[in-house]
């Protein structure tokens, strides 16, 4: 018994001192992500992508010669937990820069902490417009804001579909509400009439009451902003109810991930979605990343994955360019960023009321023969778009 306890205490001591022995050549970065809860699917895609980037970076010698170790912390999609995580990263672990989080509300919580503590924070996926409209000095955002998510789709509507009316369905979340509001604004600008604008409970099991309303209104375009399961269910019920519109369009997120096609099956055919990235796009490194991800996890990643993958490269770039790893030097390095990533060009600009915001073109994908194909803008297209789309009863 005595020997046993001696061994245990030795192991215990070892576990305390061991990490410090290697600490000099290791850079530990903690990343808050929702690994449980409703957003866990996206957290998982991002975690896998961070790990792919991590493998590549470490294989090439890490960041400034230091081996990178990532520590994922589960924020459960709750802002107060994200806040705890980031307080600890900044205060206890003395991390020089913070990045990560998935949802807009968690990103806001993290942004507030980072700004107060004057530690640079890079938003990776939080899309609500106002995160970068607060004049925050230490908050940078690599993904376009919600207001820009649908610009690609809008130009497709203007040039090809030319609709007169639209129905907007959106989930009750930060992302859903602001996505819908932005669509209303853009539709008003081009003179498209909004016939129906309905919010639904996220994770609902029956959309028929809302969809009957849509059916009665006969809109040209049905635009939906939703997460994973809702997106598939919406399309399945639209098919069941035979609601024929000229175009079914999704506002990224749930419509742009492979699970959408798996869950909605043939109901997903010819559905379009706005997206920030696609696996066919010809940015340097993006196809390699997509293939690698597919080889490891049997599916193509969504744009969330590409963002996470590129995020680590941006952090690497910034940390290597920074004069020192003091917050202000890192902030200056962020400001000077001008690089190409698998996700697209990254540059943090102050314009149109935003600070430290990356602006980029957004794309449109369509499900053609059970696969997401990039169709718009034409210079990035991997397939010709299918329009007009046949009515439900004419389909096989």
């Amino acid at each position, binding site marked *: 018994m005595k020997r046993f306890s001696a061994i245990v205490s030795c192991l215990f001591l070892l576990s305390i001192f061991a990490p410090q022995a290697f600490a000099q050549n290791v850079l530990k970065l903690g990343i808050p992500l929702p690994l449980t809860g409703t957003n866990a699917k996206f957290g998982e895609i991002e975690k896998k992508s961070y790990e792919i980037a991590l493998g590549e970076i470490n294989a090439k010698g890490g960041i400034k010669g230091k081996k990178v170790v990532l520590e994922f912390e589960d924020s459960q999609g709750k*802002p107060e937990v994200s806040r705890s995580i980031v307080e600890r990263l900044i*205060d206890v672990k003395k991390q020089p820069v913070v990045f990560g989080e998935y949802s807009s*509300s968690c990103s*806001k919580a993290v942004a*507030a902490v980072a700004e107060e503590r004057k530690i640079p924070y890079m938003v990776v996926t939080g899309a609500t417009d106002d995160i970068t409209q607060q004049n925050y000095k230490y908050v940078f955002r690599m993904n376009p804001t919600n207001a820009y998510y649908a610009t690609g789709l809008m130009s497709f509507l203007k040039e090809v579909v030319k609709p007169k009316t639209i129905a907007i369905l959106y989930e009750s979340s930060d992302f859903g509400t602001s996505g819908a509001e932005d669509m209303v604004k853009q539709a008003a600008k081009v003179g498209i009439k909004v016939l129906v604008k309905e919010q639904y409970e996220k994770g609902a099991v029956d959309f028929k009451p809302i969809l009957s309303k849509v059916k009665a209104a006969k809109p040209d375009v049905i635009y939906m902003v939703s997460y994973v399961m809702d997106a598939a269910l919406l399309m399945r019920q639209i098919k069941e109810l035979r609601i024929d519109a000229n175009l079914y369009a999704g506002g990224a997120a749930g419509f742009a991930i492979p699970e959408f096609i798996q869950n909605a099956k043939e109901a997903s055919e010819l559905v379009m979605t706005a997206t920030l990235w696609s696996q066919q796009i010809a940015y340097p490194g993006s196809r390699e990343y997509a293939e690698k991800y597919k080889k490891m996890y049997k599916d193509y990643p969504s744009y969330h994955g590409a963002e996470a993958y590129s995020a680590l490269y941006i952090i690497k770039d910034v940390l290597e360019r920074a004069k020192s790893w003091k917050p202000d030097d890192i902030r200056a390095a962020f400001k000077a960023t001008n690089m190409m990533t698998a996700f697209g060009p990254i540059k943090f600009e102050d314009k149109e009321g935003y600070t430290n915001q990356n602006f980029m073109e957004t794309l449109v994908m369509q499900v053609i023969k059970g696969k997401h194909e990039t169709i718009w803008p034409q210079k990035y297209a991997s397939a010709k778009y299918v329009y007009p789309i046949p009515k439900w009863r004419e389909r096989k």
Partner: protein
Amino acid sequence: MKKFLPLIVFALLCIVPFFGLSTYVMHILILVLIWSVIGMGWNILGGYTGQVSFGHAAFFGMGAYAAGLLYQHLGISAWWGLPVCVLILTALSLIVGYICLRLRGAYFALATLALGEICRVAAENLVDFTKGNMGIMLRERTWVDKTWYFYIILLIAAGTYILIKMVMESKLGYYFVAIREDQDAAESLGINTTFYKTISLCISGVLTGIAGAYYMNYMGYIDPSTVFPLSEVSIATVVVVMVGGAATYWGPIVGAVIMVFLAEEIRSIPFIGAAHQTIFGIILILIIMFLPNGIVGDFRKLIKPLSRAKRECHHEFN
């Protein structure tokens, strides 16, 4: 000794900011205190008066939104939410109590459950008034440093503790307990049960609402799914009190310590990923199975093996 315990704990907490703890630890302590206040608030209704509520998120969220909306629409400091929410929540409690407290047992629990959900759906849909799911964000919080936040919530928690102790040692407290033990018997003794249950609900609601208003000031951001959720606030409140011990002064505080600290500790064990929730769930189940009256309620049971060992030691010496 036992008499001075609250004072000792309070004095210790008062000097905590001078230890130079990291802000992370301070954040956790603040969360513990917030949850203690919510737990104590729930306890007066659910523990002492025996009216189990599954809708305390309604009061918490209402308090938070009172503070947030004052800031949003009138442009005054969100700290005004603390006094203002007392009025709003008293009104809400009176209305809710008038309608729901005629119900008993499970029916009352279901009515409160509905109340929480109604509040959430309303906050989500009144976009012009509450900004819906986009939430309310304070442009700048009052302090970056956590010391003052800590003292304010500490004062709120201490005030709550004293208030509850005063209420429970007065005639009012005896009425509450009588209602819990047997409502019909209480009625036949001449206690106006609906009236006293409503008072209990008012105290409970206002305390929870103050915690909500503080939460808005402290976190600087709220949206309906963070302050009105069923599982993360309403149910969590019940669990805090159940784990600590219902109808005890210290139960909610101990429960809050366990719920926040333990959850945080387990969550930060490296490399277990999403398994932390399973582990935490199992621990909660074990506590509730073996200590059905909570840690404080079953404290004797908990220390029995220890005291027995001590006694045996004595025997050996004798």
